[in-house]
Structures are given as C-alpha cells and as structure tokens.
C-alpha cells in the first residue's frame, strides 16, 4: 500500500516553477530517498507532503486521502537547517512539540524521556540549546520529530553536519522505526547513506523527476559498466574513447566505461601498457555515479531544450 503518493504535482512561485509534474509513490514500511542537487525542488516537494504548502496542480495523497490538517499528527517532519528555541530547556521544548502534535503533556514528557535516554542525553534535559553541541542539538531535533510516534517520518537532510558516531546512532534509530512498520522519507546528498538505507529512490533535478524506482532496479538499469581497478603504473591506457569517467581514490580507481566498451579490452590494454594490477572487479555503478550522470545529463538535456526553444 502506498502511504504517500504525489500525482503530477506542480508548484509555482510567480514565474518560477519549483516542482513540475512530479509523481512518485512511497510504500508503507519502506525507506524512501528523495535525491537531487541543491535547488532541485526537494524541499518544496516535502513541504507539499507536510501540508505547509499546497500544490497548484496535481494531488498529494497521504494514507490514501488528500493531505489535510487531520493527517498532520501522523507525520513527523524534520526540516533542513532546523533550530530549537534558545531560551527553553530541552525537556520543555520537547513537550511543546508533542503538544502541538496533539499529545497531552504527560505522554509527551514520558516519550521525551525515553528518547533522551536512548540518545544518552538525559542529563541535558534541563539545559538550554546553547549549552549543547551541534550534534546533540540535532539529536534533540530528531526527537522533536518522532516524539508523537508518527507513522510517517519526513527528514530533510537528517545527517548533514553530524559526526560519524552520531550518524550511526541516528541511522540505527531510523532503521528501528522502519522495523516497527514506520515509513521514512529522507532527502540527502550523501549517496552512501542512501545505498545503505533506502529501498526506493526518486531523483529530481530542475523541478522534474529524472529517475525513480527501487534502488536495485535503478542500479540494474545501468548494468555492470563500472570497473574497480587497483593498479600501479601510468594511467595512459585510460583513453577517453573507452572511459567515460575516472575517479581515483586513495587505494583504487572507479572507472565508468563508455557505452558498449568492453571491460576485458581495457584489462588487455592495461597489461599491454605494463601496468601492475592488484584488483580488477566489474560492478554496478555507485549511486554517486548515477547521481552525477543523471544530473549532468539532464542539465545537458535542459540546455538543449532551451536552445530549441530559442
């Protein structure tokens, strides 16, 4: 069953189209990644889902109904660049955020205590945000999002600015919620997190969808056209007629082949060039590659469209 569905949703601000004809569906109990470069329309899409703005055209369905105020308590929303009330203690503001989602104060306080204990923040309950580190504040903001035990979690860039330990804690909390049957949508630039957590993705660029579906399916579409190569020696053999892109990491290179290029042929050339090879592996492209490929590709397409229009 689809918990959230956008059907041809369009949102304009004056002449500017923030989201154009966007459709996607989020399955119940899944983790859904909303991807795209800055300014692609992710935040506007999310705002339509949480009923902060309404689409000009198209529909937004939440739990099978048109989005409305009654459905808001089912959603927990963590905005991007979020903050907390500076002059309020952590405990008090968590209760407040519970209250405006319809919780009574006692339930909200109990839920806040549980979550603070889980994130090892119990001793900070009586402190105010300026006393907390940025990472701690972000955890508190996450608690504010889940305090009313919502069925749907919408997280805008939840991991940005967090240290690896905090990312781990937050990730396991999100996956736990998923186990409880909650649906999670998050937007991010960090493709690594998406690969580890998402079942489905939707990639938007320039207000329109460029890619969507289950992560496996999307990657499968690209085939095994990427070579992981660990080698010693000159890289002259990686000629552009053969190689579309070459990302050199510290210990290995990630080489995206041109369409129709044969990986075995590349291996032959490397050996012929006298390069010593420690590792050769044919893999699906990383999501990072797909992201860059799609975004730059669609930009080229958009440029073409402009030229035709002109």
């Amino acid at each position: 069953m689809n918990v959230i569905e956008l059907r041809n949703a369009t949102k304009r601000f004056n002449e500017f189209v923030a989201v154009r004809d966007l459709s996607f569906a989020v399955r119940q109990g899944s983790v859904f990644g909303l991807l795209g470069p800055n300014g692609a329309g992710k935040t506007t899409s999310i705002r339509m889902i949480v009923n902060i703005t309404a689409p000009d055209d198209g529909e937004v369905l939440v739990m099978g109904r048109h989005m409305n105020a009654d459905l808001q308590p089912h959603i927990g929303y963590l905005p991007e660049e979020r903050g907390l009330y500076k002059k309020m203690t952590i405990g008090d503001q968590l209760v407040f955020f519970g209250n405006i989602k319809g919780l009574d104060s006692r339930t909200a306080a109990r839920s806040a205590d549980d979550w603070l204990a889980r994130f090892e923040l119990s001793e900070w309950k009586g402190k105010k945000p300026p006393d907390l580190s940025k990472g701690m504040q972000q955890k508190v903001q996450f608690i504010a999002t889940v305090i009313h035990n919502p069925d749907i979690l919408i997280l805008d860039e939840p991991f940005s600015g967090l240290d690896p330990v905090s990312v781990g804690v937050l990730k396991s909390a999100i996956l736990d919620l998923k186990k409880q049957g909650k649906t999670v949508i998050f937007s991010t630039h960090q493709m690594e997190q998406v690969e580890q957590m998402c079942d489905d993705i939707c990639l938007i660029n320039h207000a329109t969808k460029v890619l969507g579906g289950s992560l496996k399916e999307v990657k499968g579409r690209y085939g095994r056209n990427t070579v992981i190569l660990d080698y010693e020696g000159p890289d002259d053999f990686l000629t552009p007629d053969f190689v579309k892109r070459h990302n050199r990491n510290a210990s290995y290179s990630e080489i995206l082949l041109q369409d129709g290029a044969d990986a075995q042929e590349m291996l032959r050339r490397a050996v012929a060039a006298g390069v010593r090879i420690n590792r050769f592996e044919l893999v699906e492209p990383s999501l990072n590659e797909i992201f860059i490929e799609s975004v730059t590709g669609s930009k080229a397409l958009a440029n073409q469209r402009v030229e035709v229009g002109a």
Partner: protein
Amino acid sequence: MKKVWAIIKREYVVRVRTRAFVISTIASPLLLLGLALLPGLLATRGGGERHVTVLDQSGDPQLFDLIKNRLEPHSASRDDAGDNQPQLTRYVLERRVVQANENIDDLIKSDYSASGKKDEDKAYLILPAGILDGAKPEYRSKNTSDFGIRALESAISQAVTARKLERAGLAGNKINDLTRHIELDTKKLTAEGGAQEDGGMGFIIAFVMLFFMYMTVLFYGLFMMRGVIEEKQSRIVEIVVSSVKPTEMMMGKLIGIGLVALTQIGIWVTSVALFSTIGISIFASRGVSLPHIPMSMLVYFVIFFVLGYFLFATLYAIVGATVGSEEEAQQAQFPVTILVVIPMMIFTTVMANPNGGLAVALSMIPFFAPTLMMLRIAVISPPLWQILLSMAIMVVTILGAVWLAAKIYRVGILMYGKRPSLAELGRWLRYS
C-alpha cells in the same frame, strides 16, 4: 484549539520566567513612583541655603526686615507669606548698608574675591536708593536660572508695597492683610460640569500614562516581531506550521505575548491602586503631595493598551514575517515604529488644547488613539462617545490588520532570501 493553547502557554511561560520580565515589572513601578515623587521631592529638598548679601542703598532698615521676614522660614510662616508654592531655596540675608558715594561694582568684586570664590551660592541683592519710587532692585548671582528667584522677587515686591502703603499713612496691621498673596484654586471640570480636585498633578499623571502606553506598546510589539524572526530563522516555524495552521500559530503568539503584557500591567495597576490609597496618605502626612490616579483611568489604560497592543503586535508580526534577520528588521520596522513614535512628538499639541478639533481628530486615528486618547482622558474628560468611537475605530482596524497579517504571515514565514518589495507583498496576498 488544544494546539493553539499549547502555543499560548509556551509564549507565556517562556517570557514570564525571564529575568528581564521580573526586573522590568518591578523596576517600572519604581520609575513611575520616581516620576510622581520627583516634583514633591524637589520641593522639599530645595536648592539648599543661599547666602545673599543685601547691599542696601535705600536707607530704609524696615524694608530689609520685611524682606527678611518673608523669606526666612523661622521668622515668617508660609501662611503668613500667603504663598502656597513650596520654597525651593532657603535664603539667609545679611544686610550691608551702602553709602551713596560707594561704588557697588567695586564693593561686590572685593567681597567676592574675599570669599575665595568657593561659595557657589553666593549672591548679591542691591536695593537702590529710590526703590520705593520705582528704581529697580538688582540680583547678582552665578546661578540666575533658579526657580527660587521668584520667591525672592515676590518678597521684595510685597515688602516694597507694604512700605509704600505705610508711607501713604496706612496702619501697619492692615498692611499684611492688604498685601496677602492670592492663591488660585485649580479644579478640573468634569464631563457633567462638576468640579474635581486637580491638585496641579494632572499633567504629571497624563505624561506618565502617555509614556507607559508608548513604552509598553512598543516593547511588546517588538517582542512579537522578534519572536516571529526567531522562529523563522531557526526554521522552527516549519515544524510548527506542519502541525498547526499559520493563522493559529500567529494568534497563539499574539495572545500569549499579550497575556504576558497584561500580567505585567496588572501588577502595575494593582501597585498603583494600592499606592493611591495607602501611599498617598503616608506621603501626605509628611507634607509631600502625590498625584491621585482615579480607577476609571486605570481601566481605560488597560483597554487602550490591549487595543494598541493587538494593532501594533499584528503589524510587527507582518514585519517579522517578511524579513530574514534582526538586522533586516531594523529597517523594515521603521514604518510601524514611526506610527508608535509620532504621538510622542505631537502630544504637546494635544495637551495645549485637548478638546480642540485637531486633538479630537488625532485621537481618532487608530494608530494614535492608544496614546493620544489616553492623554486626553488624563488631562480632560472627553465625551464618552469620543472614547467609544476611537475604540470602535481601533477594533475595526485591528480586524483588518489581523486579516492582512494572516495572509502575509502564511507566505512570509516560509520565504527566505531577499526581502520582498511592496509589489511582491501584494502578490503574496493572492497566494493564500
């Protein structure tokens, strides 16, 4: 409604708990007390003792005695002086007879340098030879802007008159009666034509009322603006608006902060009321007269404050919703703040002729009514219909402002980046 209540509660509790609230709640009545007491204190404290060397060329020792009697409290009671004005300066007079061939200027110079110039309050009074025939007495002192000089002047004038009357053959005991100073008893005319004790303090009450109205409306209006900006800057607004309607959020804030203001004003009004009943009698027994503030005026103050607060806090909420930071707000708030400040610049016009057409018209303008109508209520008793009309105009304006704010707020709180132009603001109205 439960959610709005949560917002009201938050706004209230967070603000009432702050140290700033506690301090301003306590400090302001003290300031008020100071303003009220100041004239009384000034009167009793006085300008200290002033030694005046009287250079007497009149050749009339009795004239000097008469002046001295009227000025020095041990020899002349205030009743006898017939002057209700409290004496600001206590004069100590010392007579020095000056012969006709002596030069006054040289005399003063040598005396002044002999005193070592240390005595700041040293003063000279010259009684010329023909003083009873119209020659002018002269007063020389470092400080000539002293209010107390009037007392000196009046004493000389009375003494000269008394001596003239005596010269004309009038008996000494009749003279005191004839030269008694007439005191004007000022009373305030009420709406019904009755007379009301004024005590000369009407001005002070009016000014204190005006000042407090201005301060509280501005203060709490800016509170509202800052609150909106804080939520917008920290993006908390997105969390709140994903839970409640933007209009509900705005109303919650307006009411919450309004209740904070009413709590503060409630404490003030109560303390003023207590002060009026208990304090005044205590101070009166010590000879310090204090303004009595009628209860009806306090009630009007609360009503006009509530109206003024809602109007300006709503306007400030609009400003807060259209800017991205406190710095931007500095500029953007100007048109609203000027509306609060204008009455403070023109109130003297209203004070000069509080029942004139201009004053009535100005006090009907909704942005000025809280201050200027309050001022008129404090100095005169405007007809009830005028008070009610200005309230009605304010209520209508508030409804309009809230309608406008709700629309702009909804779009504005989610807009980041460039501050919108007026034309863009107009377009925002159509979005929602």
